[in-house]
């Protein structure tokens, strides 16, 4: 959703508007309305916007670039840390670096969103305002710039680990396929994924509860990580039915160039705020995820700031130190470091000593807390997405370098000099081999993203290794591919193009056979069928030019573009008319005008035909229908949707009972003494003299008499001097029925 300043400007204070005007040629003498008009008009003019952006300082442009990278909004602290990590910013004058954000607001480059006061910045160090910039200002903004890090390359040592883009695409497609095969993930009322569905996804992906291991590196809680990443990358959406489903097919995702896939996923990882790269110390630590979000932004900026030499390997310790120099005094995963306020001394030497002590403590804390997390970032998402090649020495991460994918991602401006992605059309060597036993071996360094997507759609993946992925063509996989819209000739052509060879004869024959099998049963979801009074009438219409195919004596399946003659119409996508009646004893009548093709057959499944358009529902007919697995709700839905007047409640009860429901009913001959005054009733049930007469009671006024005690009870009641009525005063049914 595009965001513009116009609606928020009237709520910006006049003093701040005067400063914001300057970017658009205004001055501080302007009245508020004129100031607003000046800014709005400036933003409407593309040329003025370009000129304004061109005149910004590099760090101010960087701020806009970071907002753009985060999709238009950014928490103020994340922006601050991103700017600091870039190395391009004004020097610190005093204390916290909130001056950076204040400056940007006064320059008219951003406002606060989600607040009544778009010019009010949270001043507490641990609270963050959500900032946004006008979309029109972001249009001419490119990638963020960075001051190169002061870091020297090292000689690589230890074991090198890297991942090919195609291997990553395979993994990501695997996760997307698993979500798709599950039919989406069910959400709780709070909008989080149900624990049981998380477990199902974990099981489908064969992930351990602790995490997944990729070439020796542990990736904790992958379900959480990937669902968050996909969500923030706009690959998932919530349905009205409470499901989290894919927004696009796995194949569609995979058909993007690898670099675009990675950029999308990286955006997701940058924006997520609930997943941890390492095991959590306690649930309170960075509980809102803001620290991690800022940290991930800082890492990506620092990687952008690496000196650009493709062969250079850097020590993780050196990188950490360089990053610390940029952000260490303003950033921590939990609460940011508290700079000394010098309240104890005004003496300059003492102040310097206090500052040094504080810096030592801050660095020491960073090494305990932030450094392990930084290593976690390298060995999880940065490595998984193939952005870095890692060097491991004695089981410890020692160094890294940016991969081709990493350089393209962090330096998109170099995309023009980066080799094209592999493509079967340009390579001299085949992307895969199709063997006569239907196995396909795909070479990951040669296969392009669309080719990989094609294999995923038309073959079963049986294994994937560092350099190859193994697939198998099966009847089911080919069927799935053809159902997705591929034609047989297209399938054969792409398989041959990818392998740069003809397919084995037996493979060709089998593919044709499988495609032929698919033609033996056609399921038409929304057919148009024209029913005639007689086969003769149908023939006459055909002779008059009606287009269609005869599917049975009087029925013509119309071609999609066939013009329909004048006809009564029944639309099965809409509710059918309420033209059924039912008695309490289950006799169903159908007034078949117009006569549809489903009602009679539906009733046949549940009832016995008694006459034309008349059916009798019985216990036997219901039991018989339920046997093969039908559900009573199907019959109840049919009756509730089609009956007029509505289903008699007694028949409803009978149907439910025949389907197995039980209702507690008691029937017994008893002698009743009714005693309406509560006080008298209480005395009678509690009297030791009377207790032997009673079998029991139903509150509030019914006492049940032991049959053999009837005469003694009469005598006792006479002794009490009571007049006894021989008839119960009950409400006759029919006269005062509810």
């Amino acid at each position: 959703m595009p965001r513009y300043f116009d609606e928020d400007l009237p709520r910006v204070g006049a003093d701040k508007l005067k400063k914001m005007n300057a970017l658009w040629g205004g001055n501080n003498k302007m009245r508020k309305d004129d100031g607003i008009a000046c800014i709005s008009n400036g933003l409407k003019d593309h040329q003025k916007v370009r000129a304004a952006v061109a005149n910004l300082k590099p760090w101010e442009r960087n701020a806009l670039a970071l907002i753009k990278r985060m999709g238009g909004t950014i928490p103020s602290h994340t922006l601050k840390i991103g700017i600091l990590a870039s190395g391009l910013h004004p020097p610190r004058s005093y204390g916290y670096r909130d001056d950076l954000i204040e400056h940007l607001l006064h320059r008219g480059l951003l406002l606060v969103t989600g607040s009544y006061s778009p010019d009010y910045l949270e001043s507490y160090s641990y609270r963050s305002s959500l900032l946004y910039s006008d979309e029109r200002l972001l249009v001419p903004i490119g990638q963020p710039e960075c001051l190169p890090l002061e870091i020297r390359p090292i000689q690589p040592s230890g074991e090198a680990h890297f991942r090919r883009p195609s291997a990553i695409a395979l993994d990501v497609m695997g996760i997307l396929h698993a979500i798709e095969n599950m039919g989406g993930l069910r959400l709780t009322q709070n909008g989080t994924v149900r624990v049981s569905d998380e477990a199902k996804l974990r099981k489908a992906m064969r992930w351990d509860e602790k995490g997944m291991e990729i070439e020796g590196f542990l990736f904790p809680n992958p379900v959480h990580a990937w669902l968050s990443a996909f969500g923030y990358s706009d690959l998932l959406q919530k349905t009205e039915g409470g499901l989290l489903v894919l927004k696009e097919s796995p194949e569609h995702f995979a058909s993007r160039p690898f670099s675009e896939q990675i950029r999308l996923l990286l955006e997701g990882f940058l924006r997520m705020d609930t997943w941890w790269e390492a095991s959590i110390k306690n649930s309170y630590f960075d509980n809102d995820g803001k620290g991690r979000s800022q940290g991930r932004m800082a890492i990506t900026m620092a990687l952008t700031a690496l000196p650009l030499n493709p062969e250079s390997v850097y020590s993780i310790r050196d990188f950490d130190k360089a990053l610390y120099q940029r952000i260490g005094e303003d950033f921590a995963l939990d609460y940011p470091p508290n700079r000394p306020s010098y309240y104890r001394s005004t003496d300059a030497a003492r102040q310097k000593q206090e500052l040094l002590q504080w810096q030592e403590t801050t660095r020491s804390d960073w090494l305990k807390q932030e450094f392990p997390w930084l290593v976690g970032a390298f060995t999880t998402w940065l490595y998984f997405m193939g952005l870095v090649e890692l060097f491991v020495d004695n089981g410890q991460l020692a160094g890294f370098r940016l991969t081709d994918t990493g350089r393209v991602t962090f330096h998109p401006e170099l995309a023009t000099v980066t080799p094209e992605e592999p493509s079967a059309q340009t390579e001299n060597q085949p992307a895969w081999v199709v063997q006569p036993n239907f196995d396909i071996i795909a070479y990951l360094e040669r296969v392009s993203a669309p080719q990989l997507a094609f294999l995923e759609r038309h073959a079963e993946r049986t294994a994937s290794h560092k350099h190859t992925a193994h697939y198998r063509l099966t009847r089911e996989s080919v069927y799935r591919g053809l159902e997705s819209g591929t034609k047989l000739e297209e399938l054969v052509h792409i398989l041959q193009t990818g392998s740069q060879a003809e397919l084995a004869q037996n493979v060709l024959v089998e593919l044709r056979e499988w495609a032929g099998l698919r033609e033996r049963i056609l399921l038409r979801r929304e057919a148009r069928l024209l029913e005639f009074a007689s086969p003769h009438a149908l023939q006459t219409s055909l002779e008059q030019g009606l287009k269609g195919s005869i599917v049975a004596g009087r029925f013509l399946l119309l071609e999609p573009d066939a013009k329909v003659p004048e006809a009564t119409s029944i639309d099965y996508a809409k509710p059918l008319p309420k033209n059924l009646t039912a008695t309490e004893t289950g006799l169903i009548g159908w007034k078949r005008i117009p006569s549809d093709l489903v009602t009679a057959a539906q009733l046949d499944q549940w009832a016995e035909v008694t006459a034309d358009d008349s059916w009798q529902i019985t216990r036997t007919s219901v039991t018989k229908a339920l046997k093969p697995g039908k559900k009573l709700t199907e019959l109840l839905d049919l009756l509730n949707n089609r009956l007029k007047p509505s289903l008699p409640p007694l028949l409803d009860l009978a149907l439910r009972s025949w389907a197995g429901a039980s209702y507690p009913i008691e029937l017994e001959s008893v002698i009743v003494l009714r005693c309406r005054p509560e006080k008298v009733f209480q005395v009678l049930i509690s009297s030791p003299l009377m207790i032997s007469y009673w079998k029991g009671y139903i509150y509030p006024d019914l006492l049940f008499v032991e049959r053999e005690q009837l005469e003694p009870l009469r005598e006792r009641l006479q002794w009490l001097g009571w007049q006894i009525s021989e008839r119960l005063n009950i409400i006759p049914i029919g006269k005062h029925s509810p």
Partner: protein
Amino acid sequence: MTQPVLHKNLPLIEVADALILDDLYADPQAARHLLAQLGPTVAVVAPGEMDNLLMRLLKLGHTPKVMEA
């Protein structure tokens, strides 16, 4: 009935061989999704049951072609 009746958005199953449809009607799990048989090779599918029928057909080893109209 002199004027024809147009049945719109009607779920249908068409088979290449009448024996296939006979087999499906003989399978209680498939038959519960089938309604009127219009001819030896054509039957009406219960509205809203197409996906369930498709799942049953796949389970029975068929690979039906699913079409919109």
